[in-house]
């Protein structure tokens, strides 16, 4: 299970790292949630999972465009790999069917394996690239694969009034 460095800033809502809540509490003492940006799904290629690579304007001053686009493109590639219909998926499907899907009690599906890879990738990206810039990516699976949620934090010392409630709807901003 991916649990490298507990002190590092990781996606607090990830089910794989229950202990990071402490770290996010610490983060929240020193930084406050200013805004959340949602990267929506891109349905132009059908129902497969893809996210829009359009760069949101709120991140303009926070992160370089290329880094952001790289992250989203890599995520899209991972999802494409998970949902690919080819030789391996047919084999898995036929094998599962012949065993009346009992085999999935012991074995995890390819999709689940790729989801774990994605979880680790997002964690790594958060540690290396996003957290130093005061951003945090939430794994899309936590949001029902609808959006990639990027939380923007601001240093409490620098922002005068508490910026948590002024932005979106003031809900769940801690």
């Amino acid at each position, binding site marked *: 299970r991916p649990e490298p460095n507990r002190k590092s800033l990781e996606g607090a809502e990830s089910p794989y790292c229950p202990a990071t809540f402490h770290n996010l509490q610490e983060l929240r003492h020193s930084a406050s949630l200013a805004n959340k940006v949602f990267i929506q799904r891109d*349905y132009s290629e*059908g129902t497969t999972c893809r996210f829009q690579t359009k760069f949101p304007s709120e991140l303009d001053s926070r992160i370089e465009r290329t880094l952001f686009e790289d992250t989203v493109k890599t995520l899209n590639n991972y999802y494409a790999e998970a949902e690919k219909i080819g030789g391996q998926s047919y084999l898995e*499907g036929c094998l599962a069917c012949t065993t009346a*899907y009992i085999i999935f009690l012991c074995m995890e599906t390819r999709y689940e394996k790729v989801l774990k890879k994605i979880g680790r990738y997002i964690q790594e990206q958060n540690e290396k690239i996003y957290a130093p810039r005061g951003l945090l990516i939430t794994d899309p699976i936590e949001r029902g694969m609808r959006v990639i949620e990027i939380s923007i934090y601001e240093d409490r010392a620098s922002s005068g009034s508490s910026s948590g*409630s002024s932005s979106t709807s003031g*809900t769940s901003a*801690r």
Partner: protein
Amino acid sequence: MHLGLDEPVRECQYNQICTRNSSPMETLSHKKKRTPRRKWQIFPGRNRFYCNGRVMMARQTGVFYLTLVLIMVTSGLFFAFDCPFLASNLTPAIPVIGGVLFLFVLGMLLRASFSDPGVLPRATPDEAADLERQMDAANGSSGPGYRPPPRIREVVINGQTVKLKYCFTCKIFRPPRASHCSLCDNCVERFDHHCPWVGNCVGKRNYRFFYLFILSLSFLTIFIFAFVITHVILRSNRSGFLNALKDSPARYPLTGREVVVCFFSVWSIVGLSGFHTYLISSNQTTNEDIKGSWSTKRAKNNYNPYSYGNVLTNCCAALCGPLHPSLIDRRGFIQPDTPQPLSHSNGSGLYPSTQNHTHMCDQEHCIQSTKFVLQAAATPLLHSDPVMMGRAGPPPSGKTSLGGPCSSLAPSQPSLPSSMPGLGCAGDMLTLRDPDAHCHHHHFVSPEEMPSPLGPSSLVLPFAAHGGHLNPAQLYDPASQDSLHEDSVRGLVKLSSV
């Protein structure tokens, strides 16, 4: 392993939250300390969960038990009364094959009934607010009383324009091929239909199980039917036909009944299997087929953008494609800091002043108590005219049903006629519990998403039926409060022009 780590951490979390709480929340956090709750316990849809969240079904499960009973009784009779004769006179392979088929049928039925069909979790409050902001910005300034344009996004898929509708219950733009099931009150991906026989919706994740169930059931019924006939024939060869029939009731009392059940089942189930085979090979859902979404009658160059063009590829994709994971994480523990989706059915159908959402964050409570006063002032400004959404829908139709037993309740059929907008909010609302809340709810629920009343009589008395549906379900109160809250916030933001 995961659970062990969670427990001590959660204790710390609760301690920290307690110190920041306003008083209404303290009792709740005390409750939380005792029993960590799982997400299925606060699931907003109208589903039932068993085995601590492992099993997920629709609310009405009566017909599912009937299906189980029919299959087991018929097969049981076959194994008890016909198999001994056939095994000894023909071949013992017959009960073996029958047994394998029967177990496969049961397995597929249980898998289709108990698994998550592909429910889309509802939007978190932040997401919903973000979407609302985007839609407001797109629509430009629209004062109260102005009819807002339908909330639709268009996307081009493989050269075909597809409209994505906004779901007012789930507060999301539905992905293509997704639909909102009015019986389960969930948006389901690749929604096929809601099957009462299976006791669940049929969607992306359990379509293959459903298809394999009806396919194997067809084989099973044909198998049983054929061999029961064989049994009677063989017996009649020995002792004459009339004697065979006479013996039948005496020694094997229920053979005749078996035959009758099988006969009717065969035609309906085989027909249904054939229909779904056609759907799979053309990569359509029952929903799309009934609405004629990709039929050339609609537009000349209308075609199905999801089809791979090849029958074999379509079949393989539907049956052997990757198995998507469940998006709703039923057995996960509720973490207090995660934003919970806007819920309708928490059972706490209380009035605004005493409202106690277990999943609403404490900050929102603080905000809500102060804004409630403003909300009361803002509400008449925002909701002076009853505005109905989603008028542009297919014409009202009765419940459409297939030839087979699976009468698919197409969720997008509006069960209320378009005369509904004419009904004033004030007059009819006296019968309902919370006038403001329900009035508001009407504004934001399109006719398509109302729970479909049973039968065409609903068309005559739409409001009464609708009221009847809403009354037992105090479910909508919290949601409408959320919507009211959000709207009052928006109204305040606009007024104060922050």
